[in-house]
Each structure stands twice: as C-alpha cells, then as structure tokens.
C-alpha cells in the first residue's frame, strides 16, 4: 500500500495543499443566494385568479383533511361574486390559516387540491420570535412568491 515511508502522510499533505488553491465553494448567504431548483419545496402559498378577481381556493377542506400535521384550518362561505354571475365558484374560502410552525412542506396539500389553488412557493425564511406569528392567514399566504403558475402565468411579488 505505502510505497515509501510516510507516503500516505505526504499524500494527505499534498491533497490539502492542492485544495487550498481552489476557488472556495462557499456561497455567502444571505448576500449571495443559490438559485433554487424549480421543484424546490418551500412553504405553501395560495393562488389568485386574475381573470375573475378572487382566490382559486373554494374552502373545500380536502387539504386540511390530508395534512399530516393538522397545520391547515379552512372555512368556506357563499361566494358573492357567483351571485352576480362573475365567477363559476359557488363557494369561496372564508378563513384559511396555515401554521408554518407545523408545516413539514410535504406537498400533500398541493397534491390533493382539486382546484390547484395551493402551490409550494420558494419562500423559506420565516424566523419569528413568537411561534404564534407563524400562523399565516389568507392574505399573507397570497403574498408569497408563488411558483410561476402555468395557468395564470403569475408570480406574485413578495410581501
């Protein structure tokens, strides 16, 4: 294995020297960021239907039922825009609370949603001092930077 005395040690010294002259692999977060892959799972965000002017979400509670950590609380109400004929949705979301402290970003809510109303955004930076501040309501969820939704071609700006 070793050809001459201290050969292995010399190899270690050589490889460390050679690595020292390479460009560092460090990315100095947060001044520099690594671009995320498109499929990267951040926290969920709700999608806004621009054509009609309301959420895609109808409050059907399927996501809440299948969430493994019970992080979602949804209620629905009658859609006023439906009565005026502007929207095909009879019901619309009333309250939507998603606890980011419980969410494990498993994407099940996105998979089960019948209306494709929820997507995984690329947002991950949500440090708060109080864990109750991590419960986001429907207005905040909307303002997340959503994945570019191919149907609406919309990327909502960050809050």
């Amino acid at each position, binding site marked *: 294995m070793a050809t001459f*005395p201290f050969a292995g040690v010399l190899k270690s010294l050589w*490889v460390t020297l050679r690595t020292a002259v390479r460009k*560092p692999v460090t990315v*100095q977060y947060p001044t520099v960021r690594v671009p995320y892959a498109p499929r990267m799972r951040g926290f969920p965000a709700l999608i806004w239907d621009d054509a009609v002017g309301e959420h895609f979400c109808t409050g059907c509670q399927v996501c809440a039922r299948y969430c493994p950590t019970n992080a979602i609380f949804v209620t629905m109400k009658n859609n006023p825009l439906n009565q005026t004929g502007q929207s095909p949705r009879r019901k619309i979301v009333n309250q939507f609370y998603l606890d980011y402290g419980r969410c494990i970003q498993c994407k099940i809510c996105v998979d089960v949603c019948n209306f494709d109303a929820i997507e995984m955004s690329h947002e991950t930076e949500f440090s708060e001092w109080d864990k109750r501040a991590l419960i986001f309501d429907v207005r905040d969820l909307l303002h997340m930077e959503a994945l570019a939704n191919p149907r609406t071609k919309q990327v909502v700006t960050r809050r």
Partner: protein
Amino acid sequence: MDLLVTLAVLTLQIVLLFNVVMFIVLALVWLERKVLGRVHQRMGPMRVGPHGTLQSLADGIKLLLKEDLAPSSAERFAFLLAPLLVFAPSFLVFVAIPFTRDIVVRNLALGLVYFVAVSSLSTVGMVLAGWSSSNKYALIGAARTAAQLISYEIPLVLVVLSVAMLGGTLDLRGLVESQGQAGPYVLWQPLGALIFIMAALAEVFRPPFDIPVAESEVLGGPMIEYSGMRWGLFFMAEYGNAFAFSALFVLLFLGGWQGPLLPPILWFLLKTSAVILVFFWMRAAMPRLRIDQLMGFAWEVLLPFAFLNLFLTGVVQLYRWPLWSLSLLSLTGLLALGYVVERGRVTWRRSPSLAS
C-alpha cells in the same frame, strides 16, 4: 535613581512585548481559521471586519462577557490558579527571544536553557487544571497531558543541545550570528530539525499530537470546565506557545533574522510565519495519534534518534570534520528514522487484544 530608570525602561519593554505578542496571537487565531478554511475549500471568517480580521477581537469580547462558571465540587484555589500557570510561561519565554539583533528585551546568556525551562512550567498548570476540575474527563486529559509533555521534552532538549554544540553557545542571539557564518543549521542537521518540529508540535498540543486536549474528540481535556476568559487564557497560551516554538525553530535552524534585501524584522516574521503555516498544514491534514502510540513514538523513535543526532554532532565537532559530512550523516539518520517508523508501525501499535 539609576535603578528606577532601569526598572521603568524594563517595565515599558515588557508591556510593549506583551502587547506585541498578544497582537500576534490574535492575528494567528485569525490566520489559522483562514488557512484552515482555504484548505477546506471554504472561506473562513468573512463578516466581522474586512475578511474577518476583527473576528479574534469579537471572540475575545464575547469571552470576557461570559459567565464565570466553576463546578461546585472543584478545588477553588487550584481551579483559579491553573489558567494563569499555563498562560504566564507562554509569554515569559518571549523575554529572551531576539526578534532581531537589537529588538530583544533581555538577551540572556543562557537563553536556550531559559526557554526550555520556562516553557515546561505549563505542564504544572495543565495538570492542576485537570485535577481541580473534579471531572473524570479532565482527569484523564490531565494525566495524558503530563505524560506527553514530559516525554517530548527530552528529545527536544537533546536536539537543542546539538544545535548549541554546533553554535558553541547557549545564547540565542549568538546562535543566530554563528549561523551567519556557517549557514542555517537546518542544512547541517536535517534530522535534528525534523525531530524538533515533531517535539514542538507535541509540546504545543497541536495535531497530530493533540489527543490530551481533544479527549473523546472534543471534550477538551483539562480545559473542559473552564468558560469565558479563563478558557480564553488557555487558548491564547496555546497560540503563544505555538508562536514561541516556531520562533525558536527559526532562531535555531533557519538563521533567525538574517537574509538579503529585506529588513531583518521582516525576515524574522516571514520565516516564523512559514513555520506556523506548516503547523497549520499539519493540523489540516493529519488525524491524531492515540496516547500510547504518541508516547511510543517519543520514547522509541524520537529519543534514540535525538541521541544519534547528538552523537553525530559531537563526533563531527570532535574530529573537526567538515560540516557537510554532518549533513550527510544526518540525512542518513533521517532515512533510518523513516525506515524505523515504517517497520515499527506493525509493532508499537500495541492495542490490547480481547484475550488479554
């Protein structure tokens, strides 16, 4: 009146020296983190100050602000005394080190002996720290520390003696000046230089010889129970020692401050930095030796070869052979050392089998 003036001047010199050495120690802490970072293909400290230069200062302030803890069952007086006993010697040695021909606090006629003697005082401090902490890990670490320091003291002293024989004096400034005529001693005593480097690494507790202070690979040996600035004292003592031993290597083997073109102080700092970089490089690349392997290395390899080095130097001096013959003999000794280590690897590993 004369006495007062002398005392004042001396105090000023000592204060200046202390500041300079502290500054160098802090710079070394930063340098090590940067160099290690680059070897790991990462950047090291970058945020605090431009390229992290103020990082050591920030760490020092943090340590000062920490709570001063001591275990309730610790021996209070010994616990508080130990860091000072470790810190003081590593700065005391600088009194006798000549940075250049003129920049020295007090060039003692027995400078070499003073250096070796004072630097081994830190052993007492480490053992005291380990014993008084009333922590089993600290005790194990302290026992290992004492064993290692004592074992590596002897080859170190023998090599230093060989250099003194070549130079004909124990005075550090005189040794450097004799290298001015003869050339740097590393050329004539490569074996001695290698043994000195290894013994110095062990004296300073740097990898690959740092197992007493990396007990179970992090717990820190005698320093476990110390927090805040008391731990900071240990830490600074380690880097102070590293700088002291590299400075000694430069003085004994590399020709001190001598060199063409550049001012002497710059030569001294450059050479010391080169040696320190080698220390950092060893840390990056080498795993640590187990304590019995470490001791086996000292007693079975370094000690006989240190004796051989002394003997060869003595023979060459006695029969007035030319110096290049010493260099040849020394190189042969070096090859023999390599051979012994390679062969000996099979036998002095000595790990107990289940049957025993």
